[in-house]
């Protein structure tokens, strides 16, 4: 891995530990949440309350996969949630933890 890789290019690895990015705020909404990144000023939306719970719980689990299990995401729903998390990783709304 070269040092020139920016966080945006880091591929999403469900086995890795993640968290909501430190410069990101979540605002609860009836359908889920609005996500705002104070650094790049990007706005995004979490379209389900379970996804909100997942993003908030990422930091408490050893991996994204473990978080999905803990939040009750079924096997059938997993691909959709992993894709949503990959999108959030690409837009820097969630970031890799280095503690594990």
């Amino acid at each position, binding site marked *: 891995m070269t040092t020139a890789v920016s966080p945006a290019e880091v591929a999403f690895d469900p086995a890795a530990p993640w968290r909501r990015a430190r410069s990101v*705020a979540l*605002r*609860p*909404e*009836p*359908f889920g949440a*609005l996500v*705002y990144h*104070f650094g790049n*000023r990007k*706005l995004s*939306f979490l*379209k*389900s309350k379970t996804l909100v719970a997942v993003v908030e719980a990422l930091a408490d689990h050893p991996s994204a996969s473990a978080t999905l299990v803990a939040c009750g995401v079924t096997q059938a729903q997993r691909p959709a949630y992993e894709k949503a998390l990959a999108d959030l990783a690409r837009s820097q709304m969630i970031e890799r933890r280095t503690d594990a």
Partner: protein
Amino acid sequence: MTALLPPRPTTPAERPVGGRLVDQFEYGLDAPICLTWELTYACNLACAHCLSSSGRRDPNELSTAEAEAVIDELQRMQVFYVNVGGGEPTVRPDFWHLLDYAIGQDVGVKFSTNGIKLDKARAAQLARTDYVDVQISLDGATAEVNDRVRGTGSYATAMRALENLAEAGMKDFKVSVVVTRENAGQLDQFKALTDSFGAQLRITRLRPSGRGADVWDELHPTMAQQRELYTWLLANGDGVLTGDSFFHLSAFGEALPGLNLCGAGRVVCLIDPVGDVYACPFAIHENFLAGNVRDEGGFQRVWQSSELFADLRNPQTGGACTKCAHFDACRGGCMAAKFFTGLPLDGPDPECVQGYGESALAARDLELVTPRSHIDHSHSGPVRGQPTLLGIPSIPAKICDESPLAGIDLR
């Protein structure tokens, strides 16, 4: 007050679970995504199409302390940024203080200005400040086209401000254009001009709001120009900001980049200089007044509990447009555009690209008096360099520019 809104179910419809974001937005949010806040009605210019009929300061405008309280509230509600405008916001003596205060409270500011106060020092200050965006208003890619609407000298003022921002190394500043019949052919020129400053182009729709009502017939783009604009946006739209301005053009076929929904009272609103909260910046009229930030419960109560906003968050169920094949694309268009041209709110937008707007306008009762806002802060006397669009002779910048004897009463 809400009798004029299109037919909606008497009991509020239940918000769907999941589905498209645009459908969720229709039911409103707990706080606006962003809102427009006009800090003052005072303005050094007298643009012919001013949507807020600005000119003179209102003696009842929010004080510095009251404005700070609004910012505190926006922070609590997690409104992450506001669009600040006016009038000309920078003529408020506490403008720079309020800008810093908002940023300090995590409320980002994007402000619109004609550039009058953006000298080199202010440009450098802005370039150093994170979390602030500047939009310079320009309604012609040439001085000739711009100044006819915005007033003599306003093009030069905007260019000086743009040069100062570029020279100071400001990033991501915007050139903000209202598309008119007179500048619709200049889109490529606007893009080139904007690019030359390293800025970004933002284009919005002319509304018949404020003094815009007086010039709308003359200035709103023709159907052919709307078609060209649509084609241009499809080709260039990703690099150009439009907000929710042109969703009515989606009925030409493809959805345009940006929000294809009327956000009024659902995801956006306006706080005017005296603290009145309207459904949108183009709807300064008592019919669209939801409350005042000075009322008990402040802005949050107005946003979350006003009867008007609750009504707007109840999706439209009846009316001519809901039966149209394009309703899902354009959603009936702009509420303010219909209202101020005297059209019913559940019918077509006056600029409906399927042509229903033209026939609706033609079918208006000849006796019809279009609604007018009672809020008017227009300058009461002549303004230096005022726009020539209305056929009013402009006041020469110096009286002697025209004739040494001009304006002198020799009796």
